[in-house]
């Protein structure tokens, strides 16, 4: 009975939060933290290498930053597991924000075109 009570409470709790699947486990969370730390270490290491002078430096850094961003949003913010309405509420404005930022940078001639 106690088990039923607990699983009922947890199920209702997950439904209230709009989750469609279970969260990652404790172990997965630690792996995610390790990957995020490793990417950060690589970012800082690259900053101190001659690769900083390369034309690929900025795209590589932006790529690593985007991967970190996506990992946090997908796993820590549970967007991968949540209801699609939450995904829409976040990704919609994010697309508008990135588009606005890009348009402004073109407008103020930060990009050569």
């Amino acid at each position, binding site marked *: 009975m106690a088990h039923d009570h*607990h699983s*009922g*409470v947890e199920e*209702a709790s997950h439904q209230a939060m709009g989750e469609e699947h279970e969260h990652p486990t404790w172990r997965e969370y630690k792996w995610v933290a390790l990957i*995020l730390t490793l990417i950060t270490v690589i970012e800082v290491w690259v900053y101190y290498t001659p690769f900083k002078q390369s034309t690929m430096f900025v795209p590589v850094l932006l790529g690593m930053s985007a991967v970190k961003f996506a990992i*946090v949003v997908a796993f820590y913010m549970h967007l991968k597991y949540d209801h699609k309405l939450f995904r829409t509420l976040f990704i919609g*404005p994010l697309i508008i924000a990135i588009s606005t930022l890009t348009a402004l940078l073109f407008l103020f001639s930060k990009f050569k075109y």
Partner: protein
Amino acid sequence: MTTAAVPHQAHPPTTTGLDHRKVAIWAFIGSECMLFASLISTYLIYKGKSVVGPFPHESWTDPATGHVLQPILNIPVTSMSTFVLLMSSLFMVLALEAVENKNKPAYQGTLRGNSSFWLMATALAGATFLGFQAFEFTSFVHEGLTIRRNLFGSSFFTLTGFHGAHVTAGVLWLLTLYSIDKKRGLGPKDAVLVDICALYWHFVDVVWIAIFTLVYLIS
């Protein structure tokens, strides 16, 4: 037993079937994306257009005094604060997991089930990040960079200051949850309260991920 427990959990009926508080926090986070995009855009547009130093990545000689000012950004210190903020996100998910699973035997009496510990650890990590930021701001002012000094100073302090204000609000939110947890204990029925705080906290973290790359690492 199960049906008796559910009404304590369930939110009032909604058209979406989802808790309004969680819909609201995601809508808020969406609007915050646009706020920070505007602040980051402003920083990037003004980047390299300052007439006088100090500059973020280049040294500058003051023509009046001949004094040479070194590049002002301190990458090692900011890397440490970035690491602390990343770890705070780990502590936050562990706090949420502890609250969600508090009634499970495997979590009772263990560190995994100690939500107070993880909430306080997250708040302390956030406070440590703010300490790094206070150190950075103070050292910049001592080196001659104020919000009125040049375009870099204005846009940099506005962007990172707004982010710091968000971290401060997050720390206060976490300490409130910690107090509630100490007073009456947070359980699975309160998971949505911790979840919306966690979403806000992780958002503050992802904004810093963008700022760290765009402001500190890209010259």
